[in-house]
């Protein structure tokens, strides 16, 4: 029933006007376009930052996704009729956005036991397995959004030569820590779960740890770089992380 979904490779349709869509009587979706695109993501994150800095009455939480921001509200306090103009008033303004965003250096192991689909991805892309790993760990990714599971990041954009459709045959069990790719995205599974993406590596870092404050490592708008490690180092980091003794290297990134 659950699926990690993601982005279907839709053709860019050019810029669209902002759309307001009700998702029932407790959610208003502010939609900036219909593609996965850093520019649309910036608009989403800017509006999110403004609403967090100066919350509108009755708005209980906001959820940034690739191309839309969903405002959850209490219909006993506010309503669509009040919210839409209030949000429109915030759209034109400058500022906000990625303030507070951090760049995370996430260790990843591309060796065999951690990368069950690496050979198939290499075959499908016409690259050597080592080249797949090299290209996957080259870019700085944007955390477009967190969803599907607690702490599960949707990372983009994947180098175009690695873009593949999801597996025809989804797995019933993807191990926790798996790093996966599908379409123009990469992701990390914080929990064991079903999943349909290609597994090309794994991280020993815990993306969601209930005993940590805050429990989720990443937030929408953060950056991620993958730092390749061998299986021995993977094991050492995993032991340290399990003991709560592995601070993931990170630094501030500005606007």
């Amino acid at each position, binding site marked *: *029933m*659950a*699926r990690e*979904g*993601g*982005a*279907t490779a*839709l053709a860019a349709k050019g810029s669209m006007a902002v759309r307001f*869509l*009700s*998702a*029932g*009587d*407790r*959610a208003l*979706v502010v*939609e900036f376009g*219909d*593609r*996965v695109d850093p520019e649309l993501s910036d608009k989403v994150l800017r509006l999110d930052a403004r609403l967090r800095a100066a919350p509108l009455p009755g708005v*209980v*939480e*906001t*959820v*940034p*996704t*690739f*191309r*839309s921001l*969903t405002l*959850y509200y209490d*219909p*006993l306090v506010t*309503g*669509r*009729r009040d919210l839409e103009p209030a949000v429109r008033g915030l759209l034109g303004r400058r500022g906000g956005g990625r303030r507070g965003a951090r760049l995370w250096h996430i260790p990843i192991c591309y060796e065999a036991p951690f990368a069950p689909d690496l050979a198939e991805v290499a075959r499908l892309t016409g690259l050597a397995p080592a080249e797949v790993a090299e290209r996957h760990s080259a870019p700085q990714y944007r955390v477009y*959004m*967190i*969803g*599907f*599971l*607690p*702490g*599960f990041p*949707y990372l983009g954009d994947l180098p175009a030569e690695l873009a593949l459709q999801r597996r025809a045959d989804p797995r019933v069990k993807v191990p926790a820590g798996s790093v996966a790719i599908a379409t123009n995205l990469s992701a990390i599974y914080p*929990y064991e*779960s079903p999943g349909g993406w290609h597994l090309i590596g794994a991280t020993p870092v815990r993306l*969601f740890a*209930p005993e940590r404050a*805050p*429990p*989720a490592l*990443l*937030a*929408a708008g953060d950056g991620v770089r993958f730092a390749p490690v061998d299986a021995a180092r993977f094991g050492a980091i995993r032991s340290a992380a399990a003991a709560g003794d592995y601070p993931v290297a990170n630094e501030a990134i500005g606007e």
Partner: protein
Amino acid sequence: MTLGFKVLSPGLHTTVQDLGRVGQQRVGVPVSGALDGESLALANALVGNRPGMPALEILHQGPRFAVSAERVRIALAGDGAAIELASGEIVPAWRSASLERGSEFSILAARGSVCAYLAVAGGIDAPLFLGSASTYVRGRFGGIEGRALRAGDIVPLTLDRTPEGPELRLPKPPSAGLGERVRVVLGPQREFFTEDAIAALLDGEFRVSQNADRMGMRLDGPRLAQKSGWDIISDAIPTGAIQVPGSGQPILLLADHQTTGGYPKIACVVSADLARVGRCRPGDVLRFAAVEVEEAEALAREAAARLADLAASLEPCFDAAALDLGSLYRANLISGVVSARE
């Protein structure tokens, strides 16, 4: 030793739930909380608690407990649910009762609903995680160790001895309302669907399949055709959303649903009807009716007012049940407590 209830048998899926974990969907944490928030609130009101205090949500089949606290006041909410005492006598839902240490009792699961709620005066002493005690089993957090109850667990309570005071009852319990149409707001992706699909949603009958849990329920019924096979770019999913994967078989998402997803959502159940949908059992039939969002917001206000009226209508039991059950059920004096064999 922590005092509370000792779990003698856990039932099929008994978890601690409150009104949910708000504010964390941005990091992928579902709201969770009671499937039927109205019954949770009424169970709490019957024992003098605030409406959102953590209580036990009991799905399908009831657990059995032994009281290890000195004296507890409990109340059960759920259409047709009941508490069966060790003597075989029955305390029906929608009234409170007090039990002494050593008492054993079973929950007879709700007949008219998939869920029942057992509230305890003072509340269950489950730690808050991100502001809520609700159990999210898939994430392994909340409630008792992030899981459903097991035999041998102790359900910790905040009070070892419930204060004196009259037992309460709800004079006119609400019906589960399963026959009534479920109101929806169409969209947010209604344009992904053919007009025939919209008509099928609003005219057809949908049966809750066996594939139903706290995350959501697959519905069997007319196929809801999309105009094209494309998924949407993943966005946020509200509780009550009706998403339609490529099979055309809709999934109605409930409390533990994932926070985002890539299937188009043909409609969303209005919040006033979420408790009713949360009560549905496999095999129950759902029919939908569309309303505009402003009407749905008004329905939410009416539902809140109706729930407040119900909570305000509680009255003391001036019958024998107000007294100590332990001595009374042995003497068979308690009105409202009927023999299980009747």
